[in-house]
């Protein structure tokens, strides 16, 4: 495992960056939906 990570450092970086981006994307997605729900409640 350690050998694989040492030999393929770029793949490890890619995996971490993709996980970070997926986390940021879904956080923003959920936040957007929650704000939309609050705006709907406010209008009613």
């Amino acid at each position, binding site marked *: 495992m350690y050998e694989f990570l040492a030999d393929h450092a*770029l793949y490890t*970086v*890619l995996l971490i*960056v*993709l996980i970070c*981006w*997926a986390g940021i*994307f879904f956080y*923003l*997605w959920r*936040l*957007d939906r929650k*704000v939309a729900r*609050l*705006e709907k409640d*406010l209008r009613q």
Partner: protein
Amino acid sequence: MNTALKIVLGCWLGLVICAALLFPVVPAPQSWNEFPVIPGLGEKARILFFHVPMSWVTVVAFLTSMVFSIRYLRSKETADDLKAVASAGLGLLFCVLATITGSVWAKFNWGSFWNWDPRETSIIVLLLIYGAYFALRSAIPSDEKRAALSAVYAVIAGVTVPFFIFIVPRIIGSLHPEPIVNAEGKVHMNGSMLAVFLSSLAGFTMLFVWMLNIKIRVLRLAHHHSKEGD
């Protein structure tokens, strides 16, 4: 921003990340998926697909804040003040991210995290200017006075942004690489590298627009809530 556009943005930046990190850097690129070696950068050139778009979004955000501040000074509409502060906040966030990514790159290329290079100094000054913008806002209790004073401040601060980002580092000698905008007027990238770079710029700009939209709506809700409480 509609759902389809958000999904496109998610996939777009995902693909940009994969291309930016997986395409090999070779001395003489032959295929469409190979990047050329940028002198003095080598594999470390991959930072430009993330660091430069962050700096770009910083400039866009601070200039957007200036535009909404001018609009506030003309209209006195609270909505314009909220848009200006939302944009300045995101500009500060991306400025911090650009500083951190630049600093990590400096550690590997120049040997230390901080070297007081003109680029580093000008970005710190910019961070201080916009840090002071938020300090100013938090120091004034009256809504109208706070909005008016910070709008004037944001206009003056916005004028300094192109100066600190584009002019100062070129007046004073800097070690910062310039593969795109340089004295020779030549782009040190091949077609595929430029395509990934421009895709990253477009993706980060779209991400900024989405984040700005959410932030303005959150601030509007908070403003409405505080008015109801009064």
